[in-house]
């Protein structure tokens, strides 16, 4: 059970406080309700580039990092297709420094041309390091573009192409800040050795005076149901053939979310999972196989990916996956297998909650999804999933018309 309190400042900033007296630290997490899905298709990668610029100095503070480090703190941030999250941890005595820093960059950035120029280069190197200069590095770019025809999940947070990042201007940066970075579009979580009163006082002092800003109205194209199987084949300089398949599924708040998560666990979670046991161990068609899903705010994808054992054709691997999927669509999962994946979920949640940063992070994300209380309801939802639900949902997900397939061939 994670305890927390919630209040809202007059400017609309939602604040959550999670007290944990066992730690000498405090965590401050600021989540902005903007992700790569909010980007213009001709300006992709901008949300993530902007995240870098948030460290390039704010209106009154030339260096965010130095000011935090001298207070004994460290920080990080990440951008997803749905949101941008900034978090820091420091000794609780210096909590006010965190408020000072985070409120100043919510108020306004310094908008420096030099910072933009450098961070464009840094992000280009990040792009190269993770997506260009690695075997199979471009595969998710391709698979997303194959599965999504209209929804912006068709590109990754790093962006569709280097050019988009290289062409970003200071004008774009200013406009983006004005649209998305304001109290009405943010959630603040403070966790650790703090009290609600202290947080309320500091929040009102530092964040209270920031103008509310306009609540961003999201109006994204809805991905229409897929009508026929999608297929693409690429050849690249990689050592092994690989197969990537994905199916459209519901969103993070869909009533079937927990069933979907358990389906992926049954199929691909761990060394006793069905796909691993059958296709890697028994039939030795794949040298590795993974099954997972996006867990995204808008309807996501469930995927199965694997590298073929040398000498095995992609087609043979694909056929074997189809046979395995047939079982989960046809037969009810055994009680012990269902119990196993539920137990795994329970232990995963318990271990995630060990870290104070994770707890703060989860609270912010659940609040964004609609209600922080979801953090305490997850386990019950996993426990309630039935074998029938797993079979029935599998029947709806695993149909050819709903599937996109990518053959990645070694040239």
């Amino acid at each position: 059970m994670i305890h927390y309190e919630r209040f809202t400042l007059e400017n609309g900033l939602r604040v959550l406080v999670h007290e944990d007296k066992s730690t000498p630290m405090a965590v401050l997490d600021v989540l902005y309700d903007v992700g790569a899905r909010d980007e213009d298709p001709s300006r992709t990668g901008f949300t993530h580039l902007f995240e870098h610029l948030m460290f390039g100095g704010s209106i009154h503070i030339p260096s965010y990092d130095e000011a935090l480090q001298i207070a004994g703190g460290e920080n990080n941030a990440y951008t997803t297709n749905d949101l941008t999250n900034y978090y820091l941890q420091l000794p609780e005595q210096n909590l006010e420094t965190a408020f000072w820093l985070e409120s100043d960059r919510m108020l306004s950035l310094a908008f420096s041309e030099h910072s933009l120029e450098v961070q464009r280069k840094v992000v280009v190197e990040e792009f190269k390091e993770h997506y260009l200069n690695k075997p199979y590095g471009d595969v998710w770019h391709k698979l997303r573009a194959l599965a999504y025809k209209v929804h912006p999940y068709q590109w990754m947070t790093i962006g569709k192409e280097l050019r988009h990042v290289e062409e970003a201007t200071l004008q774009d940066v200013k406009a983006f800040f004005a649209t998305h970075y304001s109290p009405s579009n943010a959630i603040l979580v403070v966790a650790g050795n703090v009290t609600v009163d202290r947080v309320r006082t500091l929040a009102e002092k530092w964040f209270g005076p920031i103008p509310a800003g306009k609540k961003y109205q999201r109006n994204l194209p809805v991905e229409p149901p897929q009508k026929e199987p999608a297929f693409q084949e690429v050849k690249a300089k990689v050592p092994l053939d690989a197969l990537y398949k994905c199916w459209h599924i519901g969103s993070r708040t869909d009533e079937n979310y927990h069933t979907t998560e358990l389906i992926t666990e049954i199929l691909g979670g761990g060394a006793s999972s069905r796909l691993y046991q059958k296709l890697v161990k028994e039939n030795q068609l794949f040298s590795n196989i993974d099954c997972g899903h996006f867990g995204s705010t808008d309807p996501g994808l469930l995927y199965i990916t694997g590298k073929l054992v040398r000498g095995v054709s992609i087609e043979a691997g694909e056929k074997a996956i189809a046979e395995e999927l047939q079982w989960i669509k046809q037969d009810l999962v055994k009680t012990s297998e269902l119990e196993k994946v539920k137990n795994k979920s329970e232990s995963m949640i318990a271990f995630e909650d060990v870290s104070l940063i994770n707890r703060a992070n989860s609270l912010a994300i659940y609040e964004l999804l609609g209600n922080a209380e979801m953090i305490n309801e997850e386990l019950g939802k996993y426990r309630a999933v039935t074998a029938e639900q797993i079979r029935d949902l599998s029947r709806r997900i695993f149909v050819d018309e709903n599937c996109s397939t990518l053959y990645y061939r070694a040239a």
Partner: protein
Amino acid sequence: MLNRTSPPAIKDAVEFDLILKPCQHFSLNNGVDVCFINDGTEEVAMLEWVFEAGNSYEDKNTIAATVNQLLKNGTSKKSALDINEHFEYYGAYLNRSCQNEKATLTLHCLSRHLPELLGVIRELITDSVFPREELDIHKQNSIQRLAVNLQKCDFVANRLIDQYLYGPTHPYGRVSNVEDIQAVQREDLLEFFSAYYRRASCRIFAAGRLPQDFTQLLNQHFGDLALNEKIAGVPVQKQMASQKKYRVTNDPNGVQGAIRIARPFPNRHHPDYKKMMVVNTLFGGFFGSRLMSNIREEKGYTYGIHSFIENHIAESALVITTEAGSEVCEATVEEVYKEMQLLRETLVDEEELLLVKNYMMGVNLGDIDGPFHVISKWKGILLNGLDERFFYESMDTIKKITAEEIREMAHRYLNPEDFFELIVI
């Protein structure tokens, strides 16, 4: 009106007196030392068995790692599937890891499930049989994984730099190639398993909320095994490369190069070690370091650049590592040397030094927070043959080190001619 220009008052972390929570010890009937921290906010536990069974003890490449990896792949009574199903049924994670001196088994589970899991771990470390078919699958998949990794410049660079530092036959420099993996025989595994697990030098670490009968449970399952034996060390021959500078082309179309610049460095017992931890942080050990500020935040040559002291027990190395755009690799190397020169020639100013000290103390405070962090600190101390004085002296060094001492350390350890230099594109 709120003054946003001047920072709120802070407590300098350098003034904190950090207390490392003591760990408790008890001995199993066979004398095996158990070090534990019974504490935590969640009903979870972590147990780790640390064996003297790292690759230093193997006489054929990759045997130690293969034995460690296949501990979950079959006993005389259970198949690999049985074993995996058992742990996963209880939502437990059993990870294996093989380093140079040590090899470990690490269990993470809900505390209430410990009794159901310990018996199987006993079975794994006494009765693993390494079925031939499991070994064949492992070899095939390792070879495939290696083929993918060998296309990555960072993977290739990491292998090469350790070979230059220690020599290709030294446990720290040894790498496995396709032929090594192919040559592994089941008999090699059984022999190594008998010599280093069934008859072993083992110590146990535990943390989290531990059940009341925790000590009896451990004794019941592990107190009668030959886990407290003397394992003879294997003499190693260090053979540093004579050539210092290397340029390797792994992918003619590569858009980035992996840069490694490294020199030998003594282990944690050396009197300079603690001071060098501070120097390393300032130089390349955190986001605000000299290397990061110059090469990422000023020039944009890379997504990240770091320096660190390798986590070895016997001897170590100081390593600078980054991936930079192919066209700026040489410029990056030059800047690294310029930063070394700056530290050798110019005293760090008081403000920057205080920042580094406060930052390090703040991070250390977080690093001793909670049972899992605390046990990990203790593990590092005990496995390196140190005691808690190492922790307190390290904190003291952070507090007291002066700009002059930092310059002196830089003079001793940051001279370009002592470094191996490698770019793999």
